[in-house]
């Protein structure tokens, strides 16, 4: 005869909580809540999934409440606990929503999450060297800041992500070479990332690509996450900056802060930063999840569309994605070097030809990129 050692009956609730807190895989927690009614009720009542999600993503501490959209209701809700009450229904809803969130956040599909470029703190030769150039890896083009005599003057690049709710794991940046003289690399000394949301629903419109005047980022956006500072190598290759933990970007806005200018331009003696490619790696949680930001508190409502199907992009395995990018970048650089050789190093002629050729190259490149 088997001895029943149902912990819930034998142990203090505190100890049972302690045991279950060691389970970090959301699947384990779901299975535990499927053992029996009392185990299910215990998991719901103690909010284990909410605690698990909060441990994974401290950004979720700003959740005011959760909502379920498109939930099919049976004629009468199946009884979910010993006493049906508003509070219990709220706990049960938290349980379902956070369980789904934990599961999607721990699945390892990754994609490039940038949707569009918003603005740069300064741009040289606008619009030829605009931030828009950083979205495509292969093209022999780049964003350039304006020149500064003070090398400590920072720059920022702001991007909009694919949705307002993304998990971001790393950001990759390729600084630009200068091919005219000896291979100068216009990177920064270090880089830092912020994520957040626009202050108001209309703020994004006033701060868009196409303005040669940059918006004041701190007036327009609220930053809810700031990464540590990463040193940047003085190398013109795709540099990977892996965040210490995956981060939930709530609001879909990402800022790259480029700190300290490394390279002075020979012609005018000013310090510039030039970036040729930016990639933000992670996954969008839309349409299964979306957020509504509540101003002015800055808290938000987490909404789970129970019928929202995940779009699964044809994601590249991580290494492959980076190899392709590097290869395409090298092709772009060789193209420009070839032009320089032909023209005997005449800088202005190179710029002219870049523009002229860019139309054709774009079509070709887009086909390659999609492969």
């Amino acid at each position, binding site marked *: 005869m*088997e*001895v*029943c*050692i*149902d*912990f819930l009956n*034998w*142990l*203090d609730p505190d*100890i049972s909580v*302690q*045991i*279950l807190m*060691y*389970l970090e*895989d*959301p*699947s*384990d927690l*779901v*299975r*535990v*809540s*499927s*053992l*029996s*009614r*009392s*185990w*299910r009720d215990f998991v719901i009542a103690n909010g284990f999934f909410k605690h698990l999600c909060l441990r994974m993503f401290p950004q979720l501490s700003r959740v005011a409440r959760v909502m379920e959209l498109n939930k099919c209701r049976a004629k009468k809700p*199946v009884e979910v606990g010993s006493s049906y009450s508003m509070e219990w229904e709220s706990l049960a809803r938290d349980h*379902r929503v956070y*369980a789904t969130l934990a*599961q999607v956040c721990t699945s390892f599909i990754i994609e490039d999450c940038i949707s569009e470029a918003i603005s740069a703190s300064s741009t040289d030769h606008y619009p030829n060297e605009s931030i828009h150039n950083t979205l495509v890896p292969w093209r022999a083009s780049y964003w350039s800041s304006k020149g500064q005599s003070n090398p400590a003057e920072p720059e920022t690049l702001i991007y909009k992500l694919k949705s307002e709710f993304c998990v971001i794991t790393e950001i990759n940046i390729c600084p630009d070479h200068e091919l005219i003289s000896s291979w100068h690399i216009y990177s920064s000394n270090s880089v830092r990332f912020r994520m957040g949301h626009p202050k108001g629903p209309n703020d994004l419109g006033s701060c868009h690509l196409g303005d040669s005047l940059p918006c004041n980022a701190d007036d327009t956006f609220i930053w809810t996450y700031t990464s540590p500072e990463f040193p940047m190598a003085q190398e013109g290759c795709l540099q990977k900056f892996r965040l210490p933990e995956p981060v939930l970007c709530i609001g879909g806005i990402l800022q790259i802060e480029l700190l300290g200018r490394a390279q002075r331009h020979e012609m005018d003696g000013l310090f510039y930063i030039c970036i040729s490619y930016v990639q933000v790696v992670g996954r969008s949680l839309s349409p299964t999840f979306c957020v509504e930001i509540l101003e002015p508190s800055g808290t938000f409502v987490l909404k789970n569309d129970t019928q929202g199907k995940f779009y699964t992009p044809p994601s590249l395995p991580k290494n492959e994605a980076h190899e392709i990018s590097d290869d395409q970048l090298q092709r772009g650089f060789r193209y420009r070097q070839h032009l320089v050789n032909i023209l005997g190093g005449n800088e202005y002629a190179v710029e002219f030809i870049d523009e002229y050729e860019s139309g054709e190259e774009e079509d070709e490149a887009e086909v390659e990129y999609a492969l």
Partner: protein
Amino acid sequence: MKFCTVKQYFDDENNNNVTNGIATTVIPLPNKHLKIKANNKEMEQYEQELLRNVMPQELTKLILAANYLNFKEALDFFCRTVANAIQNKSVDYVRKFFGLESDFEPGEEEKLCKEFAWSFEGVDED
């Protein structure tokens, strides 16, 4: 501090909370911890050795003993062991482990499996 309750245990002759067998397992732990604290791998091996011979039923008693003796490190260790024992295991396996029976209505369990289908895949073989 760790040994206050232990002292109390020895003083209290009429102690029903902790059987002798359990005590002999739990009480040497502090010394062992101190001796091989630096070497995590050794500690792991010692812990694995300790638990190889422990039946699931005894784990509850070990936890109760560690709790009564107010021995936090042992309590953490035993709790972690239970969690490790049920990680990535099927629902049936875990029910057997705890000696539980399902008290769900016929439709309820299916509904759970359907709602969280992703969590029932890829478990270890029983």
